[in-house]
């Protein structure tokens, strides 16, 4: 057996074990930490499968956003199952569905898959060839970027919509509350932030820029930036007042908005949505990526903060200190 295969095997065993442990764990904090580890190893799996773009995204999200989201959420929720009301017994259907699904359906489907996928392996080549054929007119030198922002840009457009929608949902649900203890920011932490933040910006720019030729792109870059913003929030930076109203909303919406405008413009111009003129394709993709990065960064950070800004619309008497931070 080759070491590579053993590596895969071990990796998968650990992943499955982790999933099992974290889902079965009674202590939720432990579950969250295990989930962070799970994300870490998942990135390794993506690397092993030759999908560095996905690995980059997983790294940026898993190491930064998801961990923060879950930890913050856990902090606000508490880790034990609590309910004032008497614990409603599982309904008959619930009780039935779990064994039926897990005991009968899933194994049978898995069995079919395992049997047949084995036959499949190495048969169909995928769409690599077709994509390569069109790559030079796509405006991007990297397959994944070309697919995301040109061939299947419609998906990406809607996905940006989902992001904005998620934020609007979060804002509609709650008001932002302070994420952390105000007092007591140690100088070491400040130092770390001062060192990391410029680096985060540089690396984010690098990831964005190289998305044209190599793995990387708006989402990875945006996720990285948002982790930076989070760090900034965590060490006490806060958003200047003038950045909280329309400007903030503009920043959040600009990625989706510009993408939509481009779709509309191309639809008017050529009759096909998102059919970029060939000589403009590169620039348009770059433009979309730039604004998308900015929006994604802001959106993800705002999602972790979890609520609308205190000055937003409904509560004129904003008194809570600003929390959604960005320098």
């Amino acid at each position, binding site marked *: 057996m080759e070491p590579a295969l053993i590596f895969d095997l071990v990796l998968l065993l650990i992943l499955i074990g982790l999933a099992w442990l974290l889902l079965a764990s009674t202590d939720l904090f432990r579950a969250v930490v295990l989930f962070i580890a799970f994300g870490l190893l998942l990135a390794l799996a993506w690397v092993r499968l030759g999908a560095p773009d996905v690995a980059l995204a997983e790294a940026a999200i898993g190491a930064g956003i998801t961990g923060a989201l879950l930890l913050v959420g856990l902090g606000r929720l508490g880790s034990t199952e609590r309910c004032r009301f008497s614990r409603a017994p599982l309904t008959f259907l619930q009780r039935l569905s779990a064994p039926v699904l897990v005991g009968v359906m899933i194994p049978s489907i898995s069995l079919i898959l395992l049997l047949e996928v084995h036959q499949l392996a190495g048969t169909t*080549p995928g769409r690599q060839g*077709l994509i390569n054929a069109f790559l030079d007119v796509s405006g991007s030198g990297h397959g994944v970027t070309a697919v995301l922002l040109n061939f299947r840009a419609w*998906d990406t457009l809607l996905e940006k*919509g*989902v992001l904005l929608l998620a934020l*609007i949902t979060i804002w509609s649900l709650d008001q932002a509350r302070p994420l952390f203890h105000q007092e007591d920011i140690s100088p070491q932490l400040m130092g770390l932030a001062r060192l990391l933040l410029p680096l985060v910006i540089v690396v984010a720019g690098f990831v964005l820029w190289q998305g044209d030729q190599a793995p990387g792109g708006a989402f990875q870059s945006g996720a990285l930036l948002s982790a930076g913003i989070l760090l900034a929030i965590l060490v006490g930076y806060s958003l200047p007042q003038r950045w909280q109203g329309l400007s903030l909303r503009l920043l959040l*919406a600009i990625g989706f908005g510009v993408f939509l405008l481009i779709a509309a413009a191309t639809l008017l111009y050529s009759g096909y949505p998102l059919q970029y003129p060939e000589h403009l394709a590169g620039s348009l993709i770059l433009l979309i990526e730039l604004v998308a990065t900015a929006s994604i960064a802001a959106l993800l950070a705002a999602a972790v903060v979890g609520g609308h800004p205190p000055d937003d619309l409904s509560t004129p008497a904003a008194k809570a200190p600003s929390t959604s931070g960005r320098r």
Partner: protein
Amino acid sequence: MTELIVQQNWFVWMTLLPLGAAVATFLAPGQARWIGLTTALFLPFCALAAIAATVFSTAQPLTVGNWPTPLGIELRTDGLALVMLAVTALVGFIISCYALGYFPPRQHHLSRTHYFWPLWLFLWGGCNALFVSGDLFNLYVTLELVSLASVALIALEGGKAALAAALRYLFIGLLGSLAYLLGVGILYATYATLDITLLGEIISDSRLNHAAMSLMIAGLVLKSALFPLHFWLPQAHTMAPAPVSAVLSALVVKAAYVVLLRLWFEVFPALDTLAIGHLLGLLGCVAIIWGSLMALRQERLKLLIAYSTIAQIGYLFLVFPLARGEAMAGAWVGGVLLMMTHACGKAAMFLMAGTIHHTAGSDRISRLAGAGGPIGVQVVVFTLAAATIIGLPPSGGFFAKWLFINAALATGQWWYIAIILSGTLLAAAYIARVLGWAFLDVKRSSYPVIPWVMKWPPLALSVIALVFGLIAYAPVQIALIGAPVSVPLLVEFGP
């Protein structure tokens, strides 16, 4: 000028416009109502233009970015897409008007008003994108867009029950779409294409494809709340604000069903689906009976209406066992017709329930007693919409059931007839219960004034729902454009 109108790809605009308006309402919350209403007003015209363009055969399906299909995403202008766009536009417009009254500009929950519009426009845009999508993965994205927007709208009510319903709905949506997505992954692995048309041409009857199909169907069945996977629906549809309940019952449940129709008739016709068809049909039957019986037991109007939705969804799933051989077209058209009528009728009912709640302070059915005066109109609304739900003519539900029974006769599946007929009687029973309260004359202290935008939209919807059967010819003809089935709808069979 006509050139310009006809040559525009209106069905694409119907996705872009509401999404753009959603962004605009997010950016300018103060103007949200007007932006929203203008968009809502504009979309029915877009739908008409899209239909005109397709009927006069200038609009063709197109791929995004004009890339050839295995590479690009196909947007379709077939009949199913067009009628769903149109029905959504119509119902959406009326619901938007209603929402103006339901979410008045100045009230304590000011933010609710402001957040309703972007969320609703997102939902609308997502639905439209879903209807025109011809790509399996794109369908996943649109499904998620729709279900996230629905979650948000349910949660907008703000109460703990609403939030719990929203979160449960979120999990259900996630579960459903992940199962669907897994199926998509398997199909892509085999055929390296996600285009519905292409897949339909090359797919073969293999175990792997069956696994993919089962996963996808299971996911969508969960999202469209077929018994026994309906458990999430009553709470979700009941706890939401009234216009949202209307949207959810009228449109969102149908969105998953439309995808299911597309899969069944366009992707998987080559597969041997007899057993699954019968299973879905059987569950549909149980849903009809169970939903109706549960509706009969409810004390709250909205819950009753929600359970009625479950029963009606059951009818929709009869399409799958009935649509075979010669009866294919009849059953398919029956499903589409029922979907359209039910959208109007159910929306009218939920809006009416919202108005009752608004005026009477509760939507307990017993509060309907003495429903004279300002809410007398709502009793009319309920009666007319009831005709639709029971399936009385001239509503479309009547003709849909006609087509189903005809298909059942033609395919020799008699037991479905018994279910359809007894479902009709059960529907009449639970409707009659409400009517009994609504017509009961007792003295009531005066009701608060209902804003006119909450009074007339339900009536308009119920009238449309009632006469839908009479004007169904054009919608059905449009639905048959590029449909996977062809006429005749009514099969005659000899001895």
